[in-house]
């Protein structure tokens, strides 16, 4: 059975917190354990921060969109902004020696670490990121595809 819930949210930090808490509920509802719930919520938080801060740049005229869908034993989460777009091919590796001591740039790395699949789509304008977590599987190496 497929179940989908979606939200349209303001470009604020309050919305980021709401996205995070909603993710915990969605993950619990999909049958994930407490550790996975926390990891999924962190991935959603990081994606929401990217949407609000880097995508929409806190523009009150821009929204970001969050959707949770459970299907075939997986939780599929999409987060879309209305910003200038993101090139996933050119995201610096935060583990590289020259980046290790930087004060930012770890959000997408953490998303990839905690989810099973991560996909980016340029929606012109904006970016949509899809996060997938399969129930009962540990996220060892997140697969990423650009569309």
């Amino acid at each position, binding site marked *: 059975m497929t179940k989908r819930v979606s939200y349209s949210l303001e470009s604020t930090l309050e919305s980021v917190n709401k996205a995070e808490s909603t993710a915990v509920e969605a993950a619990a509802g999909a049958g994930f354990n407490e550790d996975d719930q*926390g990891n999924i919520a962190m991935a959603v938080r990081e994606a929401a921060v990217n949407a609000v801060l880097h995508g929409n740049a806190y523009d009150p005229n821009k929204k970001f969109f969050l959707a949770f869908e459970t299907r075939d034993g997986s939780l599929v989460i999409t987060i879309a902004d209305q910003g200038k777009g993101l090139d996933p091919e050119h995201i610096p590796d935060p583990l590289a020696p020259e980046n290790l001591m930087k004060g*930012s740039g770890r959000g997408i790395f*953490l998303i990839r670490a905690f989810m099973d699949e991560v996909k980016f789509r340029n929606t012109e304008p904006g970016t949509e990121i899809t996060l997938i977590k399969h129930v009962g599987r540990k996220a060892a190496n997140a697969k990423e595809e650009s569309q």
Partner: protein
Amino acid sequence: MKASSRQVSGVTVVDMSGRITLGEGSVVLRDTVRDLVAKGEKKILLNLGDVTYIDSSGIGELVSAFTSVRNQQGQLKLLKLTKKVHDLLQITKLYTVFDIYDDEAAALGTFK
């Protein structure tokens, strides 16, 4: 997010509690360390035992704090990481960058 400072054996111990996330938590950490450095405090031990959550912004703030203190020829060390913070520092390869301790007395003894 709350941060309170105390002096122990010439070291400033900052007891932090709550969430270090984009917005308030990161700002509290940044301002606290900036104020200490401005006052000439160069031996800082951040007690993260009651930090319940940290995001990438908070991790970045820890790195920036470490760098700013080191640039003033000071030392910033970490005390009592929760499992979550410990795991995040490990996967971001920062665990070996910081000096991390579980015991306050032992940590205090390592400052030069």
